[in-house]
């Protein structure tokens, strides 16, 4: 396996441009194609969002990256190691948080963490220290001796994540880690992820919630029907692929349609959506016109570009469909 040799490739202080580089990865379950030649890469120290609807192939991608599933074709280079040849070494540097809560409900949180830490080969005082650290990170130190079955869904999710952190992974892969939890727990998880990112851990975050990707991720890839539709920097993608627009609720839309820089006007909810290449200039014109002519404005808002609109423009369907 050459485990030791590979590990030596990454010395303290080394920097990598890409911690993950996958090329033409394909996977079929029987006759059903789960992944069809997907290619993307993840820069070190970023939070990378893999966004797509349910059944798009996100979980299969995550499972291939963590060595749970073997790809039929393609290569995955993780931390400079080929995933097919260095599975054990990769597992020791990658933390995986599955979509389902996989904890022993009859054991307490401490025993669960002790177990997972030992599964990653951590032991002794080092393990105890790390358990205490992750319990602090999750905010559950005072509940450590309670059985997991007595926890709320959000608390279980936090311990589920903590179980993947005990071996100090360089990459943390999270597969829909916030499914079915309350906003408070979600915020706690977001804080944990931001904190890990600050510590230099590369995060790969799979979700079908656009808001989560927008809140957490720097880089994203959008996956649909087993194919990567687009990949890149979140801000750049939003800039490139979403229409800039202004929302206005007024009865005098016909007058505003005549203003310069108006590309398209369409109705939305109780008002109108005005698309424009120069939204700031248009906003100023709208305000001036309405003041001069005494037009009543009930609501006026500069619309932020969203991933929903990016997904819509690329696939023609809504992400939530």
């Amino acid at each position, binding site marked *: 396996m050459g485990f030791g040799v590979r590990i030596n490739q990454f010395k303290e202080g080394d920097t990598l441009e890409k911690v993950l580089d996958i090329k033409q990865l394909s996977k079929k379950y029987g006759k059903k194609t789960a992944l069809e030649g997907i290619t993307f890469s993840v820069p070190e120290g970023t939070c990378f969002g893999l966004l797509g609807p349910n059944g798009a192939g996100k979980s299969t991608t995550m499972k291939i990256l963590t060595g*749970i599933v073997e790809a039929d074709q393609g290569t995955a280079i993780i931390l400079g190691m080929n995933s097919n040849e260095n599975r*054990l070494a990769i597992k020791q540097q990658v933390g995986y948080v599955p979509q389902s809560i996989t904890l022993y409900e009859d054991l307490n949180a401490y025993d669960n963490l002790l*177990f997972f830490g030992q599964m990653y080969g951590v032991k002794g005082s080092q393990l105890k220290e790390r358990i205490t650290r992750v319990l602090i990170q999750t905010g559950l130190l005072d509940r450590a001796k309670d059985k997991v079955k007595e926890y709320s869904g959000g608390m279980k999710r936090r311990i589920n994540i903590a179980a993947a952190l005990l071996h100090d992974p360089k990459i943390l892969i999270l597969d829909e880690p916030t499914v079915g939890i309350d906003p408070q727990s979600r915020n706690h998880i977001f804080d944990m992820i931001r904190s890990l990112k600050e510590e230099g851990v590369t995060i790969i975050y799979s979700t079908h919630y656009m808001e989560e990707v927008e809140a957490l991720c720097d880089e994203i890839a959008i996956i649909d029907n087993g194919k990567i539709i687009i990949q890149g920097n979140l801000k750049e993608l939003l800039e490139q692929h979403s229409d800039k627009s202004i929302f206005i609720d007024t009865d005098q839309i016909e007058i505003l349609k005549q203003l310069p820089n108006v590309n398209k006007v369409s109705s939305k909810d109780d008002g109108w959506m005005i698309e424009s290449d120069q939204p700031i200039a248009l906003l100023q014109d709208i305000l001036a016109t309405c003041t001069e002519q005494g037009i009543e404005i009930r609501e006026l808002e500069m619309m932020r570009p969203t991933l929903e609109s990016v997904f819509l423009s690329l696939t023609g369907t809504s992400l939530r469909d």
Partner: protein
Amino acid sequence: MMLMSIISKELKIILREKGNFFFLIVMPIFFIVLFGSIFSNTNSSFNVPYIDLDQSDSSKAFLSQLNGIDGFELEKVANEQNHIDQIEAGNSSSLLVIQEDFEETIASGIAKARLKFYQDPTATQVVAPINAVLENIANAYREQKLSSAMRQLGLTDTETESILMPPINIEEINTSSTQVDAITQFVPGYTVMFVFFIMITMVRRFFKEKESGMLSRMQSTPVKPIVYLIGMWIPALISVLIQCTVLLAFGRIVYSLDLGNLLAISIIVICLAICSTGLGLALAVCVTGENQGLALTQVFTMGGAVLAGLWFPFELLPSFAQTIGQFTPQYWAQTGLQDVMVRGALAGDVWQGLLVLLGYGALGILIALSRFKQYIRSAIN
């Protein structure tokens, strides 16, 4: 390290599950106590309802003789016809009536004294022993009569005894060092039977690991599949060892069961544990659903218990059932335990049984190993 951690975790889960405690310890103790109490109760006796119409010294002497026999108790009845009606209705099985001329007829020595014995022909198990005892008493009266006639003819006591001496003498010799009783049948019997219920525990645990996604998650850790499998197996093995220790100790403490050579018993228990958990391992990774596993375990444990003679002595089974029973691991475990407990056997004396148990265990482990990759794949997909 990883192996010890899996074992420790699994033991905690198995020991905390109340269902396991119930199936592996409480249920067998309940059955041992229940059947032990029923079948080891030697106070059971046959009731002999009677009416003495003669009320003479001879009739009283006859009844006193009958009452003096162990296992028979006289029950005076008031009305003959009423009791006959009871027999016909199936509420009583017999009635002995001593006729009014009983003493007179015996004294005359010419005619036979009459006893009426009403009986329910369907209750042969109860009636037959009473019939046999009455025949014996009648024979004793005849011997007495013969003896007195021979003496009157001038024969000496020795000559009379010699003539009346039965030509065949049956000598009863117990070959076992300890008596085989209900306890030496049921304690090892129910221990062996319920040991195989560990298969249910194993099926449940494996399915829980699979369905919760834990088995899949384990694949993302550096743990090797073989380490995981051994880690899941050993706690079941330890559970069976604890179970056998508790049940046999219960028999020893509560019923003063003679366990025989403890080393031999321990070796049989270890082989039995390997056998039951090896088969449990195979079952857990082969069945497609938890219910299927539970059903197969029930068939195996119940069917095996009957065919292996765990519920009643193996010798009472029909010959075809005995032939099939010898292929069950339960038979070899029960025979081995009873050989050590009752017949004073040592481990070397029961080597065939030990080999059979280990063979079954090894077969189960080999099947589990060959199917485990497929099992993991089914858990991941």
